[in-house]
């Protein structure tokens, strides 16, 4: 649905004759399939907004190639606009008008007739649960209400591709969960969603596939599960009922096919490196039972996306 190759954008900022160039996006190759939630994850200044704005035809790229919904971004941006919806990082509504009026105008700007636009606005009010405040001026909306309206404005014309810039920044956990549910619903209805985020949990839980970016370049791309697996497998820790049996347990477990390595930690528990924790855990327990060793605890520790970022860039996302 979205294909980019070598997409580039630099900003030139002039200060007293000295110009500095920031390579905001430095050659990005992305492939977004139809009907998936694709997340662009990266720290502040990674080039997420710049990428999104280029794909949404708001910013002319410096180079590369890209198609969005089958239309060439460079040759026919007007055609791209017919298939997309876009929700900016800060949204954007007039204070004096109501959510319903905004929805109707947005649908009409997308070319729909008056009656059709009103019907779409009414449908959006229903499906985004705006009814309670849809006929009040936007001035008084809370952050969560505003963000829900922003999202509704982005999809009122039922675009094939929806761009969301930091859809949940500044929302409380409840409003966030609600927005996630709405984004999933859109995906289930066939919309391709391209969003940016710097929340690890959002990328992990909401997105079907993610691209991690840093300094305008791609660090890694894949499903959250693939990316985390690519790191170093997973870790299972086992506590045996009789700690003096721990070395024997380690010996037994190293012979298991699913265990890549086993070590006894100072606290007497075992640390096992495995490929997939879910399938390894029952095998581990069976092997220990077969050797007559009783298991007290068993736990799975999965690498996070932050581990992925750390492994590829040497920095932690949460600190940068």
């Amino acid at each position, binding site marked *: 649905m979205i294909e980019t190759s070598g997409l580039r954008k630099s900003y030139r900022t002039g200060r007293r004759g000295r110009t500095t160039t920031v390579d905001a996006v430095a050659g990005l190759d992305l492939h977004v399939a139809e009907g998936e939630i694709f997340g662009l994850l990266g720290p502040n200044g990674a080039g997420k907004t710049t990428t999104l704005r280029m794909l949404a035809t708001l910013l002319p790229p410096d180079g590369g190639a890209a198609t969005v919904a089958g239309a060439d971004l460079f040759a026919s941006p007007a055609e791209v606009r*017919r298939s997309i919806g876009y929700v900016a990082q800060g949204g954007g509504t007039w204070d004096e008008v109501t959510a319903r009026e905004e929805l109707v105008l947005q649908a009409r700007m997308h070319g729909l007739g008056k009656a059709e636009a009103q019907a779409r606005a009414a449908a959006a009010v229903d499906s985004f649960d705006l009814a309670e405040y849809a006929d009040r001026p936007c001035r008084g909306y809370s952050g969560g209400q505003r963000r829900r309206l922003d999202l509704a404005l982005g999809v009122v014309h039922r675009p094939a591709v929806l761009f969301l810039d930091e859809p949940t920044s500044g929302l409380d956990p409840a409003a966030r969960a609600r927005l996630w549910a709405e984004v999933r619903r859109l995906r289930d209805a066939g919309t391709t969603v391209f969003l940016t985020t710097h929340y690890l949990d959002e990328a992990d839980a909401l997105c079907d596939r993610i691209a991690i970016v840093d300094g305008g370049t791609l660090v890694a791309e894949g499903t959250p599960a693939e990316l985390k697996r690519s790191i170093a497998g997973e870790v299972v820790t086992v506590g045996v009922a009789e700690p003096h049996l721990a070395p024997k347990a380690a010996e037994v477990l190293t012979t298991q096919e699913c265990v890549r390595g086993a070590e006894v930690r100072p606290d007497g528990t075992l640390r096992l490196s495995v490929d997939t924790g879910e399938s390894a855990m029952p095998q581990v327990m069976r092997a220990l039972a077969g050797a007559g060793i009783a298991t007290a605890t068993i736990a799975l520790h999965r690498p996070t996306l932050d581990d992925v970022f750390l492994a590829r860039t040497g920095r932690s996302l949460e600190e940068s």
Partner: protein
Amino acid sequence: MKSLRDTWLVFQRHLLLMARSPLQIFLGVAQPVVYLALFAPLLKPALASMGAGTMADAYRIYVPGMLVALALGGGLYVGFGLLAELGSGVIERARVTPVSRVALLLGRSLRDVVVLAVQAAVIIVLAIPLGLLVRVPDLLLAYLLLALISLTSSAVSYGLALKVGNPDVLGQLVNNLAQPLMLLSGTLLPLALAPLWLRRVSDWNPFSWAVTGMRELFAGHPGDPAVWRSLALMAAVALAALLWSARRFARTVR
């Protein structure tokens, strides 16, 4: 066709925004009333040099100039609204839609013309008991001229707003533009009082021509060459301003 429909869409929205701001409406009407009330006592002595023998004469000279001043001065400040809209993200929301770029400009400018038309109506109605007399066909021509001036000033203001992108700079720019244009068109102070060189300079100011044409219309001389000249000149200027500003819109608001 599409641009016409989109222009109507943008125009409607901006009229609605105006209607929802009672303070803005009140100030918009109050301004011409204040002009009329404050300047009135000074009119007869000040305009004596232009042949104003009576108060009624004075109004016939003063009101057309003031209407041009309102169209010119009022229109030049509309760019601030656009800067606020750029900051709030509503422009960006329009930009991702296929809405016509020219419509984003024209819809706004036409709203400004309507605002001016209402202000002008208030002034004319208030000035009639004071001795202003104008025939309906002449008034319609006067409105056409006003609309052209208003389109020019608002298009220039929007274009400048997009070019400088900063309200402080825009404020300086508009002030530096409005003052000399107003002075050199004899809108409020008659140019007859000016030294010859100043009058020669004002010959290059299209708004000065517009004031002359407007005064002939309110004097009941629609056949005076100043009338068609001012209409033709302002039509050309308005077209140039709209084209320039539309290009800025098309580029900035791609």
